[in-house]
């Protein structure tokens, strides 16, 4: 055996070299020559699954009409909890040229120096930011502007929310005589409640208990896409304001918001919060949604609700209107969420930045771009002139949402401690509902904690917005461990790196986002 050793060694070495060579060849990014002299844009987006194909179609249309630009798509689920990949990419200076940002995150990302100020680029394109602002629904534009600068452009606007009531359930309850005598004549199945007082009556009339269990409920005021979103919704409907942007002041304890929370708590007191939580926890989303199966007969939905309703309860006859408001509250109260598009601060190549701006303006503020986005992704554009709005005029349900979008006056606070604020509101609602704290004290506490957090974040950048500590030999963060290789170098050709990169039409990522990635 011994005499074969050298031969075995040679064979093993040759196999090793061959394997290494094969790896290098296969792992190389695709030859850019097939793209000629095109500028390659890396685009990170949050759409997976079937929605990805729709998004890819829209990007294909862009590259067709802009032959000098090629796009590399990468699915990155960047919601409020899962954006580490983007942060590390920015620090490693290998972020893409275009990033989709959930609306409420724009301020935080701008504050921490992750995004490019789009103002100068817009001017290069002959677009005056002031004029462009007028082309968008006001709250959509507002969530893209922080400290007087434009950091992103709205891609889609989610009108939050429409009020749905189940006409069938009310009709049956009336026909069967299930409505208590004190409410008879006050409940009209064909006409939904217009005010909070009316909604309370509708709720009390339809809610049924069997023993210690609630078997049917009118509405669960804190069950509107989470407790924090519920409080935003009712807080604004009651006429409150959550944030004073001019003074960077958190105002969760605004007396009107306290009133809203107190009203929410009235349901917890009336029906026992545990019973309602039990009813709520019985159901999930989609086909188990309590509204679709008649267990809850009034509910607020964002536009995703229309698709779900068509899919899971096509025969359910329901009315759609705007959110009821209390006396002295805000009529037709609504707010917007949705995705925006931005350019990361690490995209410094002028040609790529221009291409990125070209794409953003096409996707967000052009007839073709918004038409494709709205047709394929069913996203409502934030651009007022989008043809989508006339296209859906004949569909009463979609038109109801368009109306809500037009009237929406709010967006979540444009401030750099959004996730913390949401958690604090969530907790305040929970504590108030369970009677642990009064609504006022719960909201005082949320205000105090969030203000302290916000002050810390703002103090860090001292008024302006921060620069990022990009790891590179020239610009090094003062970090005693910075000698370790960052492992991620600036990519001259493409921002989208890694095996998950989905080039148009070639690959579908395993992970999928819900149809409306940004949530409400």
């Amino acid at each position, binding site marked *: 055996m011994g005499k074969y050793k050298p031969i075995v060694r040679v064979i093993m070495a040759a196999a090793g070299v061959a394997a290494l060579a094969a790896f290098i060849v296969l792992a190389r990014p695709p030859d850019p020559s097939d793209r000629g002299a095109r500028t390659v844009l890396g685009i990170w987006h949050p759409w997976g699954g079937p929605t990805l194909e729709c998004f890819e179609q829209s990007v294909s249309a862009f590259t067709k009409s802009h032959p000098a630009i090629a796009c590399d798509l990468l699915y990155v689920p960047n919601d409020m909890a899962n954006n580490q990949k983007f942060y590390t990419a920015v620090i490693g200076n290998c972020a893409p040229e275009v990033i989709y940002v959930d609306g409420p995150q724009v301020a935080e990302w701008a504050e921490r120096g992750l995004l490019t100020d789009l103002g100068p680029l817009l001017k290069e394109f002959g677009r005056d930011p002031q004029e462009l602002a007028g082309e968008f629904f006001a709250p959509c534009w507002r969530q893209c502007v922080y400290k007087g600068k434009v950091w992103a452009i709205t891609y889609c606007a989610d009108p939050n929310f429409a009020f749905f009531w189940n006409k069938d359930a009310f009709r049956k309850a009336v026909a069967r005589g299930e409505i208590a005598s004190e409410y008879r004549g006050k409940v009209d199945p064909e006409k939904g409640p217009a005010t909070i007082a009316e909604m309370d009556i509708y709720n009390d009339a339809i809610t049924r208990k069997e023993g210690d269990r609630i078997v049917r409920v009118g509405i669960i005021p804190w069950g509107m896409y989470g407790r924090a979103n519920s409080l935003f919704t009712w807080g604004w409907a009651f006429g409150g304001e959550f944030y004073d942007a001019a003074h960077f002041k958190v105002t969760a304890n605004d007396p009107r918001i306290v009133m809203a929370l107190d009203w929410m708590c009235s349901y917890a007191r009336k029906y026992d919060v545990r019973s309602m939580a039990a009813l709520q926890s019985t159901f999930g989303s989609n086909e188990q949604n309590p509204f679709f199966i008649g267990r809850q007969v009034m509910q607020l939905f964002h536009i995703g609700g229309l698709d779900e309703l068509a899919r899971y309860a096509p025969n359910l006859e329901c009315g759609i209107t705007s959110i009821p408001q209390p006396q002295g509250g805000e009529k037709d109260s609504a707010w917007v969420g949705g995705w925006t598009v931005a350019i990361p601060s690490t995209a410094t190549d002028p040609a790529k930045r221009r291409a990125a701006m070209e794409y953003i303006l096409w996707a967000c503020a052009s007839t073709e771009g918004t038409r494709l986005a709205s047709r394929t992704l069913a996203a409502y554009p934030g651009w007022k002139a989008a043809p989508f709005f006339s296209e859906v005029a004949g569909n009463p349900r979609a038109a109801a949402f368009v109306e809500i979008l037009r009237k929406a006056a709010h967006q979540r606070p444009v401030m750099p401690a959004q996730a913390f604020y949401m*958690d604090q509101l969530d907790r305040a609602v929970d504590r108030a509902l369970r009677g642990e704290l009064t609504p006022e004290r719960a909201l005082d506490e949320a205000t105090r904690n969030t203000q302290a957090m916000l002050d810390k974040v703002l103090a860090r950048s001292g008024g302006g917005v921060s620069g990022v500590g990009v790891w590179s030999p020239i610009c090094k963060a003062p970090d005693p461990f910075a000698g370790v290789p960052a492992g991620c170098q600036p990519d001259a050709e493409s921002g989208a790196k890694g095996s998950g990169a989905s080039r148009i039409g070639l690959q579908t990522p395993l992970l999928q986002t819900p149809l409306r990635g940004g949530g409400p």
Partner: protein
Amino acid sequence: MNSNQWKKGLLFISPLLVGFAVFTIYPVAASIWYSFCDYDVIRPTRFVGLANFAELAADERFIHSLWNTLAFTVLVVPLTMLTALVLAFLLNMKLRGQALYRTIFFLPSIVPLVASSVLWLWLLNPDYGLINMCLRPALDVVNALTGTHLTPPGWLVDPAWTKPALILMCLWGVGGSMIMYLAALGDVPVALYEAAEIDGASAWRKTWHITLPMISPVLFFTLIMGIIGAMQFFDQAWVMTPNGQPGDATLFYSLYLFANAFLYLRMGLASAQAWVLFVVIVIATIVVFRSTRRFVYYGGEGI
């Protein structure tokens, strides 16, 4: 070994050494530094001394999360050990279909945590969950007999019952410890039992004086690992009660650490939190080591 062999040896394990240095030693060392810094991952670090630790000491949610975790650990570790031990004793009996029973009881521990958590969300549903559907008729009988008004627990919607609910779920997944106890039970020399029987020892005395001492190293191991695991309890809580609600009852230490690190971008504070947890675990382990060592019998020590 001569130096050439050393060199070759090091060369061969160099992938491990490099990986260990870059992906373990560096992050651990860096987190010590970050715990003294204001650091959000994105911007450069800024030294703040002990400010992070001072903030933690004054943070009532932090204290609450620590308390939740300690209470959970004190409850779940002995209960899971006891359950696993009882199951191991039962499954060690010479029965027909013994292997089948063992497999059945081991199965839950190989179900992915997220899948089992979602399943338990259904089981624990207060109104329509299987557990309360079984409890309700039983309680109705009790109520009828005693005139009480007992209702089934609210489990995950009632702050008082969330920890018991999670503990119940942990008890379902004790298969891993059970298998270790079974292996240890199989290792106890039969000769010892025979000698005890000749001396007229009862089954209880055999268990107490032979079985338990002989498997005590495994019990000790599972105790230590159980404490460490319970202190870091995260997955099920994250899936079932992501905000630690209702009432912060399931705001476990790791959940709060995760929120600080990845939701609020306070990596410096989260690093400080991680090191506090490390110190707590070390202290707990030392206390357990010191207090239980004399009950652990290693064959090599001689009888």
